[in-house]
């Protein structure tokens, strides 16, 4: 019997750890550039070697995202993206690939769908966790509760600005893994992956959490992944994948394979 939800997420990180590498977490926006094109790209990325897929459920006003993912969400909405459509996509991906699927979005489209209904349909589609940028732990329960009841993980975010008090609050509300935001800024901003301050922050976070820690924002190349692989349980690449996807599924698959090469620890 196959595992699902937080268990599937845990298994993916355990496998990567056994292989002495960081897990490669890849973000792509559902329906970018359209439904079929998006599936084609996501399949290519999965085949290229993603360990975890973050599937973006488009929102009209993604305030935490930089220009690349904003534009992807705008393209996706123009080609008919919807919450229901994104859930159907998740189900199609699940039929072909066993990797954990994290639904990434903002509060409004998910809450508008109805928290109970969203959690039920997400679990039914084979998604394993939710990452909602603008639902901090103080407001998360409305969706985290129904998601948890169906075995779905809740991915909390810790930023460089997060205080120790808040960090404990975020960790307490998280399951599956914890997302360490690498920089004070939006997705796709420039990052120095060798910054000792960043490495120290990741070390603190790993000490204080029993969950896998993934690091993301501004990670673009295999060298970036390599520089971070020893400091986190996983590395997230988003904007760079979206950009490669615009050059087609083949280009995207190649980039994922190259990034995967960077996950091996020395």
């Amino acid at each position, binding site marked *: 019997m196959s595992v699902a939800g937080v268990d599937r997420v845990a298994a993916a990180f355990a496998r990567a750890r056994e292989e002495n590498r960081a897990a490669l977490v890849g973000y792509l926006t559902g329906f970018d550039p359209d439904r079929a094109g998006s599936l084609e790209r996501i399949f290519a990325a999965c085949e290229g070697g993603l360990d975890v897929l973050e599937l973006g459920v488009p929102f009209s*006003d993604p305030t935490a995202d930089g220009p690349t993912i904003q534009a992807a969400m*705008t393209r996706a909405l123009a080609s008919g993206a919807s919450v229901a459509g994104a859930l159907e996509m998740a189900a199609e991906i699940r039929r072909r690939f066993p990797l954990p699927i994290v639904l990434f979005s903002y509060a409004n489209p998910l809450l508008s769908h109805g928290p109970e209904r969203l959690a039920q349909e997400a679990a039914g589609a084979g998604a394993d966790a939710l990452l909602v940028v603008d639902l*901090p732990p*103080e*407001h998360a329960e409305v969706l985290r509760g129904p998601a948890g009841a169906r075995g779905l993980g809740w991915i909390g975010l810790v*930023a*460089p600005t*997060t205080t120790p008090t*808040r960090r404990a609050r975020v960790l307490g509300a998280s399951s599956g893994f914890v997302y360490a935001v690498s920089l004070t800024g939006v997705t796709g901003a420039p990052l120095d992956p060798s910054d000792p301050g960043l490495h120290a922050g990741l070390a603190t976070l790993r000490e204080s959490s029993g969950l896998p820690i993934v690091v993301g924002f501004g990670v673009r190349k295999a060298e970036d992944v390599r520089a971070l692989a020893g400091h986190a349980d996983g590395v997230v690449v988003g904007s760079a994948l979206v950009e490669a996807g615009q050059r087609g599924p083949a280009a995207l698959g190649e980039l994922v394979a190259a990034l995967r090469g960077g996950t091996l620890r020395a």
Partner: protein
Amino acid sequence: MAQVETRPKARRTGGSPIGATIPRRMTAAPQSDDDNPLRGPPELLGQFGEFGGRYVAETLMPAVEELARAWPEAWADPTFVGEYRAILRDYVGRPTPITEARRLPEAVGGGRIFLKREDLNHTGAHKINNCIGQVLLARRLGKRRIIAETGAGQHGVATATACAYFGMPCVVYMGAEDVARQALNVVRMRLLGAEVRPVTSGSATLKDAINAALRDWVASVADTHYVIGSVMGPDPYPLMVRELQRVIGDEARAQLLERIGRLPDAAVACVGGGSNAMGLFAAFVPDAAVKLYGVEATGEGLQGRHAATMARGRVGVFHGMRSLVLQTDDGQLLEAHSISAGLDYPGIGPEHAFLHATGRARYLGVSDREALAATELLARTEGIIPALESAHAIAALPAVIRELGRDAVVLVNVSGRGDKDMHTVMKHLDPATLDLIDKAEREREAARAALRGAAGEESLIVDGHVLRSERKEGT
């Protein structure tokens, strides 16, 4: 649902001898949290009933928490409040007067109408009250850079002005559409030393300017304060901006008591995000006898493009708050439209959503054309050219008077002056609009006739639609 009718612990005027309760202060009256009937307990994250909250990315949460701690401290600090008041007096030109309308009443079906003259503020609108306070707070917090969003450009100009006054660098995000529509204000901001960054993403209007400002703030939060221009956004902004704008209502309340020895029967103000209305309402919310009317923009009509958040919005999470939002069934934001860029916003401050839900305030709708006609009406009857935003409040007067009767005392906030809108007015003074103005003249004549004798319930100049207003009243 939270408690409905909020009762003040102090400062009741009903039944007390007229004139005996005139506050001595003519400017903002800070209240402690305990004394503040609108403020929920702090553990509710600044929620107003089910509305409000702090729905922001983790990166911003510490900054928002810092503000939520610093704001009440500052507002309780006599030095801070003293400096704020002194600047409002010596620089902004407060208190602004109330003007009793002389000829407007006969055109709108009667009433005794008092205009709160926020149009006479430095920079031409109420926005400056908030900007002075927030930039003062930013200095207190040691922030070295100011960012702001702007729609019509009024908040941008007011922020740029406050930054020039204090010598702080200022970046204003403005939708590219609005940059084109409000070129004059762009020139003003640049003249004042601000950098104006046009925003081309999304619908390239106010909501996208706010998105861009939030993205800037996510990256610059260590040394930057974001001056939000209305009673919206994550807590503590809705509360803080209301308190910084309540000088409008506090002054007007005292001025009316002094002038006519009684409170008004109604207070009326236009609502986009809702800061001038909240500023006016704040002083009267505890006075249950004073009816509160917010006026939102129905734009081209509710079947067309509009900004009628109360009439057509659904509860959602947007720009850091839970409030009413114009959105699709799938939770995507809709583009708002109003002829007045300042009302062109698909959300509304959470406290307005609360006052609406509890029935304490009612919200009417006024269209682009009605607002244009009301601009002309106030200009011709009183010699005051209001901002198109404020004209929405004027346009709702016939509906308010019709409801309250011809003897009603009505306080209306003229939140800004119309200089900035002359280009828009010029563009819309097409034959159809001129026809409308002529029709308004005829109807005004009919209204006068009605006032002189006949029963005459209809034929008023403009028609403020009462929207979803009766529910839960009196609970």
